[in-house]
């Protein structure tokens, strides 16, 4: 039996005194588009950083294809953080060249084509681009790699609906079918249709992991609906309009 693509065993991670991940256990196979869902502070970004090798767990094991995150896993993991992550002074084509230089699985032509389709002038410096365009450039770079694991942190937050459609269809059209895409988001309604599987994260632990259509059959709800039920916070009832 081949090792699962992602394996997390009893993972603990804190920031100072604050515990973010508490004995997290997780297993994700390859060839899936998986949604990592949870409220803010549940530990989604932390988990993605652990998988991409940017953080180390205090306790427990994180394995990507059986290996601890490091140089070898970084060449097969493509990570999209939720904020811009390049030097402003670089031009788009400088970034394209950088990716081509360091990642053997980078498809330069595809990246340039996608920029052309979006009418992004690759000779422009990143700092001259609008926020939405910067995010699209980041996404293009990440998705132009033929990686085994794509980690996308809130790829559609703060983006207008037209751009959202572009991003989702880019993900669908460009991901490596032998690989897995792990999308962390709280905008579930927009994303649930492209998901195979969802993982619900709460208080640093996985509280549910299931194939999406099975979930719909069992709960007779959309994933978005289920999310609202699971993570419902009681609204404040002491205000003016209370009965």
């Amino acid at each position, binding site marked *: 039996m081949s090792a699962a693509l992602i394996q997390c065993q009893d993972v603990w991670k804190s920031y100072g005194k604050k515990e973010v991940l508490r004995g997290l256990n997780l297993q994700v196979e390859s060839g899936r588009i998986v949604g990592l869902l949870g409220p803010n502070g549940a530990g989604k970004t932390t988990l993605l950083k652990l998988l991409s090798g940017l953080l180390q767990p205090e306790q427990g094991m994180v394995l990507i294809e059986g290996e601890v995150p490091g140089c070898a896993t970084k060449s097969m993991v493509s990570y999209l953080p939720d904020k811009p992550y390049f030097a402003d002074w670089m031009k788009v084509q400088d970034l394209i060249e950088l990716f081509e230089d360091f990642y053997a699985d980078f498809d330069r032509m595809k990246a340039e084509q996608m920029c052309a389709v979006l009418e992004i002038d690759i000779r422009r410096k990143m700092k001259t681009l609008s926020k939405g365009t910067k995010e699209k450039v980041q996404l293009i770079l990440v998705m132009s790699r033929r990686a085994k694991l794509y980690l996308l942190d809130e790829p559609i937050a703060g983006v207008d609906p037209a751009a959202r459609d572009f991003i989702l*269809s880019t993900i*669908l059209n460009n991901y490596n079918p032998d690989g897995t895409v792990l999308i962390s988001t709280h905008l579930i309604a927009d994303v649930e249709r*492209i998901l195979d599987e969802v993982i619900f994260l709460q208080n640093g632990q996985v509280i549910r992991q299931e194939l999406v259509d*099975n979930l*719909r059959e069992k709960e007779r709800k959309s994933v978005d609906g289920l999310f609202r039920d699971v993570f419902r916070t009681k609204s404040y009832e002491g205000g003016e309009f209370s009965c």
Partner: protein
Amino acid sequence: MDWRLDDSRPIWLQLQEQLTRRILSGHYPPGEKLPTVRELAAEAGVNPNTMQRALAALDAEGLTITNRTTGRVVTKDEAVLEGMRACLARGIIEQFYESAAELGYTKEQALELLKRRQNL
């Protein structure tokens, strides 16, 4: 033809339904080769695995035949197509009677409505 999907029901089931309708309406005529899984999934905005499950269900029903060399082709077997058409039609009729009953009509009254509509 648009893909109209409801997130509270299994998507693969809805895809299967809509693909079936496309076949029966002639959008994919008998013998026609269907687009690839990826193309269909991209068109519908869904996960390719989900689309694959729907297409496999079509194969299971006999509406499509998958061949390694020719890909996925709509069946030419009229009997199968007619059978599916009749099955779906029964479903529509049942739905009609159910909806009419919700409004307070008996089956006979519902049938009268239909006849009157026919004569207009």
